[in-house]
């Protein structure tokens, strides 16, 4: 997160925020490997250090990871999307309805679900770019709207189950040795990474995040680029909905409740500035890893298991980590002789 951009050579790599975060993830992992792995009475290794547990972490972090990937370009443009978790729920229901009630085949239902996600993202995009409304409020409205539509479509009770085994393979089995959805996640991560770091699109996201007015004077189509990130977020949320449905084997209206908070936490923890303009996909991935390892590792610690408090502890520690990362990110500014102008969130 250095303001002047990466320094050349090994120093640049060493002093980057991502490197620090990678170290944090590794320390976390080693800590849990040491304290979270035990041998049970039959002499079988259980707990954190097993391959199964590692795959479990991967499996459980795919959906939040996808949402975090979707939010990275959004936050780079100094926007925010609170609706991704609700959209995940809506897309899961749309998928279930298309497959179960409309009788479509799985591939065509999935394709239509992706379209629905993109359209819903387009609603956000249209309101934000056409009318110049603040993203926080627009997506707060659609946060309510999407979840409400999902509840209204199912009357809050219907759950779609009995998906064919071929579809469940996506979420519950292994393909080429690792959980199948990890491949999709990897694909999405590479695609977003290329978009953000290797195309002019990514550069324009940053430019818009630093100064929309400046970007406009530089000849960038600000409205179209901004719209793109929200449509992309909707598309990725729909993909996450498919994976969620395949993992649990059921589509219900409360799918993904609260996921947006974890996704935003992962992005900000990954070093992307909430004011826009700065950040990286690598950082987001490391942020997701930091949260996922923490969550899974705590569940393996004997002391936490005794207290039956894995979820609570991981929430508290994730929040504390976020505050710590934020405070750390502004340390240079505080220590420098020139105090920055007050900024508002």
């Amino acid at each position, binding site marked *: 997160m250095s303001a002047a951009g990466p320094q050349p050579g090994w120093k640049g790599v060493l002093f980057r925020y991502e490197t620090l975060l990678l170290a944090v993830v590794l320390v976390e992992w080693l800590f849990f490997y040491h304290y979270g792995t035990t041998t049970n009475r039959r002499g079988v290794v259980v707990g954190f250090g097993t391959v199964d547990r590692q795959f479990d972490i991967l499996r459980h972090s795919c959906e939040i990871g996808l949402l975090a990937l979707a939010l990275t370009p959004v936050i780079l443009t100094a926007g925010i999307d609170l609706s991704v978790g609700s959209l995940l729920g809506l897309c899961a229901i749309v998928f279930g309805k298309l497959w179960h009630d409309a009788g479509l085949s799985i591939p065509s239902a999935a394709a239509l679900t992706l379209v629905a996600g993109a359209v819903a993202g387009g609603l956000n995009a249209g309101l934000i770019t056409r009318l110049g409304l603040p993203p926080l409020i627009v997506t707060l409205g659609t946060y309510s709207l999407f979840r409400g539509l999902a509840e*209204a479509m199912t009357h809050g009770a219907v759950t779609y189950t009995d998906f064919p085994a071929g579809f469940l393979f996506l979420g519950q089995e292994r393909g080429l040795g690792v959980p199948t959805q990890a491949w999709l996640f990897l694909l999405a991560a590479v695609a977003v990474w290329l978009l953000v770091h290797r195309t002019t699109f990514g550069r324009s996201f940053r430019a818009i995040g630093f100064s929309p007015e400046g970007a406009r004077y530089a000849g960038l189509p600000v409205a179209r680029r901004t719209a793109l990130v929200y449509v992309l977020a909707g598309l990725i949320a729909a993909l996450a909905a498919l994976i969620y449905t395949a993992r649990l084997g059921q589509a219900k209206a409360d799918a993904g409740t609260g996921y947006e908070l974890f996704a935003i936490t992962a992005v900000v923890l990954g070093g992307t500035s909430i004011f826009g303009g700065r950040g990286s996909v690598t950082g987001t991935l490391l942020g997701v890893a930091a949260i996922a390892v923490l969550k899974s590792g705590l569940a393996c610690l004997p002391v936490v298991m005794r207290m039956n408090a894995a979820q609570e502890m991981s929430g508290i520690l994730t929040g504390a980590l976020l505050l710590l990362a934020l405070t750390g990110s502004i340390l240079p500014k505080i220590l420098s002789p020139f105090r920055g102008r007050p900024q508002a969130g």
Partner: protein
Amino acid sequence: MNRYFREISVTMALGVVLLVLAVFAPAFYSPQPLLSLVTREAPTLVVACGMVLVIICRQIDISVGSVFSVCSICAGLLAARGWPLAGSVPAAMAVGALLGACNGFFVAGLQLPSIVVTLATMVILREGLNLLQQGAFVNLPDRVQWFGLSQAAGQGVLVAFALALLVALGLGMRRIAAGRWVYAVGTDAEAARLAGIRPRLLTFFVFVLMGTLAGLAAAMNIVQSPQVQPAVGTGLELKVIAAVVVGGVAISGGRGNVWGAFAGLLLLACVSPALTHLHVEAYWEKAIQGAIILLAVVADGVRQQKTAGGHP
């Protein structure tokens, strides 16, 4: 008309909803259910008043729901230990003020973005409460409920108190210098600083006030039921922010007032009973609330584009 367009249009929308209810569902106006509905919203109104100040100051606080829960449980535990209300209510407010001061320290002191800070404190407080309380309910002694008065009297006291607070804040924001400072800082913090206001100190105190009001609202909430459940206040932040935004308080700071937020809150609060009385399925509530929020901001956006003459 122009200046108070939003406040007036929201009030008119509320009037239309009330009129429709009067024609199609007169049962909505039977006194006891109506008083109960208004009493349930009284604590929300108190939190919304605080949120108006926070948003006018160009900040946001999404931890109010968690602060509300923590204060509820604190007040409940103290009351269960035999503290009189005169002790447990100020205690809840003090806890709220302390938590608000934490937010204020990070936002105003360290200049961190309020949305992320309060996101973090929201999760920390919520999970911390779950850890300590493990989902256990707190049973309250009988004399706590409705302040030991009859139900109708207790409800009247709560509503009157919330309205008094609303009027006090409404007048204060308009007449008192500190109220004008909040607008000044929200409009342009740097200009406010040059005018001799201390924006960071003011922001800090706005967060402290927000916490205090959340604590007060928690105390107003626990007297309504014989038990306190730890999940109370979950999602309160979004409800409150929605009401405030529908009421015309600009998220970009410096614009809006508590009256609009009051109308917005009543409008959103009417949705659920209106659905019941008009025989629409209750599952639509969230979708309709979301649509109202979007409608309100779209109206704003269209109007701004018109006044700005096409592109902003």
